[in-house]
């Protein structure tokens, strides 16, 4: 939050604060007015004293919002894009870091980067979902290796959860797809979820675009395999696969019906060894189950297949199904329509995201909001009226 707001909120005068920081009162008022940005040492001290509430960004925020990228920034990004299109993995990696950055200036750069990035519609975006332990990574590795043989270039975007408590994360996807990770025409990028819900990061779509621009023609988006992830991933891919475990007879393995409805292709994995016969039963169970389910796509009945990722069996068949689906969709013009829908979803997600940021960064830390909160605390307003009042102030047409 802004230093001004913090001090007001905690009833600290600028004089008191200047003593705590051991700087002059004039300096403090300059920081508050935005006439000067504190140096590194003082930034740290302020951060420490305010328990992290006032950080470096809070001093830049006003500047950056109004700043347009300068020509050098733009040239740098044009250069980066050129290198990406020439297939530089390093530049692709840097671009993904940029689109994932939470730094405001980086976000401006990222917006510019995406706007000039060549868009491709001859790629295939595959979403992969399934409960933990179903073998998503092994499946992607097996299918990925097969696709490399067929002269495709394969990118895998995997999301690992950031700890809610510490914020850190463990990104182990390359150890799970070791054979694929060392191949020349494969690119695996694990990203921390950074508190973004839905099994993707806030910038998975941007990342897909970057990978495609770098010449990767098949892009896998692997979800963390948690409940609400599927809808989010479904809205950004061309085909959505759900992996299943062989299991005899019981009802749909506790998988939510909603997820099956989203699936374009159900794959029973681990169809090997002692599980082979169970896998066959499972395939039949699901064939029966989906016959009474409405598909999320027009004119497409989901298919059920099985494979053994670990033994690389049935993988070619799965690919035939996937490419068959894509061909069919293209023939009926649904493919491009879906891509347009993906862009629409993207747009609304961005609107949503930016409003949320706006609420967090600006509205919540604003003096007006404090006043309204105060009224609420003193029982002068109820929650509903208070919410409407805030919205009325910020959204002109809100009724």
């Amino acid at each position, binding site marked *: 939050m802004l230093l001004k707001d913090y001090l007001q909120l905690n009833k600290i005068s600028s004089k008191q604060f200047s003593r705590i920081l051991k700087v002059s009162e004039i300096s403090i008022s300059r920081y508050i007015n935005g006439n000067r940005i504190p140096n590194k040492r003082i930034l740290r001290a302020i951060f420490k004293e305010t328990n992290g509430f006032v*950080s470096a960004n809070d001093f830049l925020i006003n500047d950056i919002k109004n700043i347009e990228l300068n020509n050098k920034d733009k040239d740098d990004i044009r250069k980066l894009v050129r290198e990406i299109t020439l297939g530089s993995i*390093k530049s692709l990696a840097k671009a993904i*870091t940029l689109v994932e950055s939470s730094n405001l200036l980086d976000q401006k750069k990222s917006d510019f980067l995406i706007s000039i990035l060549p868009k491709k519609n001859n790629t295939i975006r595959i979403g992969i979902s399934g409960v933990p332990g179903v073998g998503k990574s092994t499946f992607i590795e097996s299918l990925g290796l097969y696709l490399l043989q067929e002269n495709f270039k394969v990118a895998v975007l995997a999301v690992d959860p950031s700890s809610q408590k510490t914020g850190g994360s463990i990104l*182990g996807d390359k150890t799970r797809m*070791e054979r694929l990770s060392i191949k020349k025409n494969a690119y695996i990028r694990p990203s921390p979820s950074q508190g973004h819900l839905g099994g993707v990061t806030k910038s998975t779509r941007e990342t897909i675009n970057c990978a495609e621009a770098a010449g990767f023609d098949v892009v896998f988006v692997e979800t963390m395999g948690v409940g609400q992830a599927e809808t989010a991933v479904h809205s950004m891919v061309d085909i959505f696969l759900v992996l299943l475990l062989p299991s005899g007879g019981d009802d749909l393995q506790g998988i939510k019906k909603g997820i099956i409805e989203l699936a374009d292709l159900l794959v029973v994995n681990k169809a090997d060894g002692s599980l082979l016969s169970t896998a066959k039963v499972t395939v039949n169970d699901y064939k029966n189950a989906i016959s009474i389910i409405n598909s999320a796509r027009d004119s497409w009945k989901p298919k059920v297949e099985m494979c053994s990722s670990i033994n690389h069996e049935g993988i070619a068949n799965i690919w035939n199904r996937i490419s068959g689906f894509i061909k069919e969709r293209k023939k009926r013009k649904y493919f491009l329509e879906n891509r347009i829908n993906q862009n629409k979803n993207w747009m609304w997600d961005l609107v949503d995201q930016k409003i949320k940021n706006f609420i967090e960064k600006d509205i919540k830390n604003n003096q007006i909001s404090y006043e309204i909160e105060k009224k609420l605390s003193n029982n002068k307003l109820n929650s509903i009226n208070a919410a409407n009042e805030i919205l009325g102030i910020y959204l002109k047409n809100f009724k």
Partner: protein
Amino acid sequence: MAKNYTIDDWNKQAEKELREKKLSDLKWETPEGIMVKPLYTKEDLEGLEHTDGFPGLPPFTRGPRATMYSNRPWTIRQYAGFSTASESNRFYKEGLKNGVMGLSVAFDLATHRGYDSDHPRVVADVGNAGVAIDSIEDMKVLFEGIPLNKMSVSMTMNGAVLPVLGSFIAAGIEQGCSKSELTGTIQNDILKEFMVRNTYIYPPQPSMRIVADIIEFTSREMPKFNSISISGYHMQEAGANQVQELAYTLADGLEYVKIALDRGLNIDDFAPRLSFFWSIGMNFFMEVAKMRAARFMWSEMIKNFNPKNMKSLALRTHCQTSGVSLTEQDAYNNVVRTTVEAMAAVFGGTQSLHTNSFDEALALPTSFSARIARNTQLILAEETGITNVIDPLAGSYYVENLTSNIIKEAKKLMKEVEDVGGMVKAIELGIPKMRIEESSAKKQARVDSKEETIVGVNKYQPNEQQDINILSIDNEQARKEQVAKLDILKKNRDLSKVNNSLAKLISAAENNNSNLLELSIEASLNRCTIGEITEALEKVFDRHKPSSKTISGVYANSVKSSDMLSGVKKEIEIFKNKFGRRPRILVVKMGQDGHDRGSKLIATAFADLGFDVDIGPLFQTPEEAAKQAVENDVHIIGVSTLAAGHKTLVPILMKELKKLDAESIKVICGGVIPPNDYPFLEEIGVTKVFGPGTSIPDAALEIIKLL
């Protein structure tokens, strides 16, 4: 003196002494979760099931032999291997002249993983951490002048167990011994490799078949040879507590018994030839109690298979003092640590013992440090009088009670294993590995927050750095020599015999119709190399790829003082505000060294501190590591190195980064790195070297500053 005092009188007296504190404050919860009281009395012996009995008789709690050290002390068996066969041979002969009674061979990493010295993946591994053996010819040099029909030889080999044991037997045959005369031990304990040490080659199923083939062959042809050494050592080294070490090792043992019985062997055919291997750490009484508990439990377990021979019930063991308890800082303290640990092994009734050299946290032992390590045992055996009485701690209220508690706790863990269907299944599910990694993270947290003292490391640090002479090994020279020897071997052998032998191995692997050890001996005699035999079987069995799970949260939750963590968290927040993301570190483990305790620990602790942590696969090459670092756009690469590979691998990594135009990625190193190598590493561009014993939050703060 007339009054008979009771425990209540003592309670009162003790509380008086304590003033403000309570008596219950003196209780100590061990890392195993056992509550230890400040005083034990006669009552603590009541109802304990294990306390009766005599040494040499079931249930063997008091020792596997009737007379124990009162007749003959334990075997001093020092584990060693130096780059080349001829150098190791010299070292063994020197040891034999100075009191060593049995040999113990350490192989280099390339051999462990079944690669010949000329394989491109092992450039940095040949001659590291042990002797390079490529064929029967190297084996013959290794034992030149040492008659194998008289000398007991222990070999730490699990992955490439077939070609190594095969060429050992073949070397014996060419020395003129018969197979039945060979004595010694082959470790051959593959299950713990999947759990902690990672020097496996094939997947679990075929690996277990190999174990069974070896038990079968040795029980038939080599009656004096221990077919397997069921090892808890590496578990404790990887961070397991003593109860985990005990429970998982016995559970491993049970699996081996089962596969041998499945082969149609009689329990008495092989059970007397099973031996065990414990790590002995600094928790003195716990170690003694563990060893006694193990003998009792094993005897109870084997009883269920109705052996006729009493020897089948007796657990015999080798012990080694704990390597992980050694410190780089104030290294001479390690002499004292090793002495205390050696005493625990002796009070626990070990059959043979290796004492570590004080410089092993830095490098392989010099002849000076090796001498002190040997003498530690000789002094215990010949100067102290400890050997005169058998199982001298028996009847101690504390030790007996502790023994009983360990038995109880270990049984709980074994039950957990049994409930999922045995150890093979539990390993597949990753349960023991996870439990051990949890223990390891907790231990590190206790040390980092000074709850557990390590003298000279987190307390009483020396003011000055001591200079210690350490052994430096020219790995490149060793590799060149090995490659030259391989060339000669390949020129002078009968290729049709070689191909025939390898074809037989492949067919036996496919059809499961002949003994693979028998065929490996034949192949060794025909001059097939370790790598060729391994590769032939790999065609059928495939090479095992580990799935790697990493725990999270345990470290942070175990740190009692949160100040330590919040300092780092604050720095990370500042970093994040500035750069738009958290500091991102790639933790890599290059080369064939599979000890991943250190790298796992760093990964989980750094993630708990708020870093984004990428993990590289085990056995990565520097090229692969550089590629991963660039693709994931990390800020920094942390190289974990234990096996002297840093001198070869890190320079290649730096070169690869340069090639990828990614010199902005910083490189730091940690692990077992001799201080003498620091300047070399810094010169080639390594930003910082962290020695063992660095507190993790301190390291994290320093890293953030570097970025």
